[in-house]
């Protein structure tokens, strides 16, 4: 972080650097930690069961070795990396595993994870691809199955009150994250894209109650610190599936641009949609995950013309471009990513048709590609002037 005098920001930096350190500590103190993949895991239910939801991330600096003995190399490189470091014991504190039916790379490797890690609890939450009413009803049933299943593992019945409290807690975290994004609207932004990524990643690895306590302090420190980021000639938005490392963000920010907003996980896709407070908490949770999170893996039925459907699918990107005064969008997609790979031509055409330049980069989730990426980013920034 840029202000070394801040204890809160130092703590965040440490949580980012030594990802999982807090979960490990709490596990050693007797808390149970449930690892999960992807923003589609209904973390409220894990929290309501009394467990710590811990998002399993990869490591771009660690060569993938052990995973290749269990998992094909045709899988999303981020998932392979996450599996690799988990196999190597980085997250040896996990007491369970929850995987949502997000994409093939995640759901089709569920059994590999489950049987290879041999954790005492594992569950796959099925999530429809469609968002119509019958899909919502089906998904509520799936959430209740998960609720009973993890409740059995916890040895308790998860009550509506437990769920409502968990919803409130996770919504508090989301509200704070949204406030942080507000600080990026100014020019220069009050925090860099790299700093934001570190905060987002740190929050994935600590209990939500600690995130809810930590984030207001982070916001306060950022607002009050003296060393603010330097104004850059370009304001960039990054769009893609999942970015859990600063490596690529640093490439952009080292090339004379600020990353001011994103449509990523973790990022706005994950933190902007809130869970509505409903009489049956499962209703609000289902609505958020099925309809609220706009991800390429979910099919959004065309309403009206094709152009209107594009507005529905990608309109939020253009709204962010406007709100955050973005002058270039980078589509950053990993190889073997079917949900986002198939989006690229439509998304790129849509954004460019609104007058915003787009750079499409396909990457491999590895530090080894950084110099090549730098050249392409620099050329893009030169092109947009």
């Amino acid at each position, binding site marked *: 972080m840029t202000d070394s005098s801040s204890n809160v920001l130092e703590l965040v930096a440490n949580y980012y650097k030594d990802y999982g350190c807090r979960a490990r500590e709490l596990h050693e103190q007797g808390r149970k930690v449930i690892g999960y993949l992807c923003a589609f895991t209904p973390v409220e239910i894990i929290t309501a069961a009394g467990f710590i939801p811990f998002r399993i991330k990869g490591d771009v600096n660690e060569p993938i070795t052990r995973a290749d*003995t*269990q*998992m*094909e190399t*045709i*899988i*999303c490189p981020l998932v392979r990396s996450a599996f690799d470091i988990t196999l190597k014991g980085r997250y040896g504190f996990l007491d369970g595993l929850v995987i949502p*039916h997000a*994409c*093939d*790379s995640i*759901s*089709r*490797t*569920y*059994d*590999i994870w489950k*049987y*290879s890690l041999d954790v005492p*609890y*594992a*569950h*796959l939450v*099925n999530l*429809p*691809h*469609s968002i*119509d009413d*019958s*899909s919502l*009803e*089906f998904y509520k*049933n*799936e959430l209740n*199955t998960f609720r009973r*299943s993890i409740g059995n*593992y916890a040895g308790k019945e998860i009550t509506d009150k437990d769920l409502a409290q968990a919803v409130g807690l996770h919504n508090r975290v989301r509200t704070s994250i949204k406030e942080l994004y507000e600080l990026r609207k100014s020019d220069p932004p009050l925090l860099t894209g790299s700093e934001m990524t570190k905060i987002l990643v740190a929050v994935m690895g600590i209990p939500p109650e600690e995130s809810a306590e930590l984030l207001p302090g982070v916001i306060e420190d950022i607002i009050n610190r003296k060393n603010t980021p330097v104004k850059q000639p370009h304001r960039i938005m990054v769009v893609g599936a999942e970015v859990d490392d600063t490596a690529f963000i640093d490439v952009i920010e080292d090339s004379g641009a600020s990353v001011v907003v994103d449509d990523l996980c973790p990022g706005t896709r994950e933190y902007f949609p809130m869970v509505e407070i409903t009489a049956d908490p499962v209703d609000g949770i289902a609505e958020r995950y099925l309809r609220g999170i706009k991800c*390429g*893996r979910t*099919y959004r*039925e*065309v309403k009206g*013309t*094709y*152009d209107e459907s594009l507005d529905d699918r990608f309109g939020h990107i253009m709204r962010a471009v406007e709100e955050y005064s973005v002058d270039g969008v980078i589509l950053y*997609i990993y*190889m*073997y*990513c*079917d*949900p986002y*790979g*198939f*989006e*690229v*031509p*439509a998304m*790129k*055409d849509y954004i460019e048709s609104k007058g915003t330049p787009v750079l499409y980069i*396909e990457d491999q989730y590895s530090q080894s590609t950084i110099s090549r990426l730098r050249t392409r980013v620099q050329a893009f920034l030169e092109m947009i002037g």
Partner: protein
Amino acid sequence: MTGERKQRTHATEAAGKAGKLSRELTMKAQQAKEEGKPVAYSFIVCAYDEIIHAMDVVPVWTENYAGVCAAKRDAQRFLEKAEMENFSRSLCTYALCDLGFDIWRAELGEMPPDAPWRGMVRPDMMLGSGQLVCDPRNKWYQAAQHYMPDVPVYEVGMPWPQYESDYDYREVQDYYVKYIVEQLRGLIEFMERHTGHKMDWEKLAELVDITDKTWDLISETYELRKAKPCPMDTGDAMNTMVPIAFMMGTQEAYDFFIDLNEELKQKIARGEGVIPDEKYRLLWGGGLPSWFALSDFNYFNSKGAVFPAETTYRTFENTRLFDIDLRKISDPLEHIAWRWIKYWTFWYDAARKRPGSHPDVERLVQYIEDYNIDGVVMHEAFSCRTWHPGLIWQLNQLKKVYRDIPSLILESDIVDISSYSEADTHARIDAFIEILESVKSA
């Protein structure tokens, strides 16, 4: 080097007819288009076959067309076309091939030059599917719509319960069935809206019965392949998949397997196998084939190896072995939904009986036992994350819960021939045969 294209030789007459059937389906869609009949881009194994036929809509099996382009070694130009539009070459190459075709056809306003089998017609609708597998079924038609913005897409949700340790799928199957029925009803409403046709419910019920009968018949027919010498192997099954995947719910598919059944019985009576001197019996244990290199099955044959069984395109089970009596379910949509759930959960109970097993592994074990298998061969297609994740793990698990059995995972693709080397593939097969030989002689 990929080498010259070699025509695969068939062991059965039925397999020889399948290519013609596939071509006829493509021509039928072309004819329907000329006559103004509704045509729908469709995916195989989506359980909507009978609905399409009963609605008098003509399917264009898009995966089939990509496979045909691949088999003719004429897919690269379509893959490149898609790549030029910024579709990554790491995506499903069935999808990329057809998207490239769609883009080219849209640019020209007519079929691309020298299109295999005179080309894939522009559809009137596209029927996608959201399952527990295959992101491309969910994304491909949406992506195609970018080049055909007036063509409507329907996404039918077709999930099935995951195999879990802490509960039985029967605890959740009712709400799965209810959901699938509602999704299929939505599909029918969509098709009625866009075709002006009304669903013929009596016809649908008839076709649903035909599918049941056909599933049972294919199961019985494929059981005949247990005979030694094996009368038909996986090379032929990659042809007889045509009526399974593209003609289900038709009398023609049923009749095809009546003929095959008879043919296999006659071969068995004559003691006639795929090869005269059968040394090794192999299981094709997973992965879609490289459509441009089907003659590799003949290469295996030339080394004394046959494939009496495969898991690929075994998209049916004997419905009489289900734990419910499908015939008592008179509502055709419920019938389809229950058949779907029972198909996907078919191996769950068997897996639960063997500690550490899993339905996919249990199926391998059962086939190894039933078909007297000496080794397992799989194919990892780089562009498909639907059927190809978990192959390594399944073999590892097989060794843990059953026994160590020689295995080989070939690596290439379904459509993209640039991923293939005939010399390397044959060298790997040769090495595998040596292992089989050493195990046999040990």
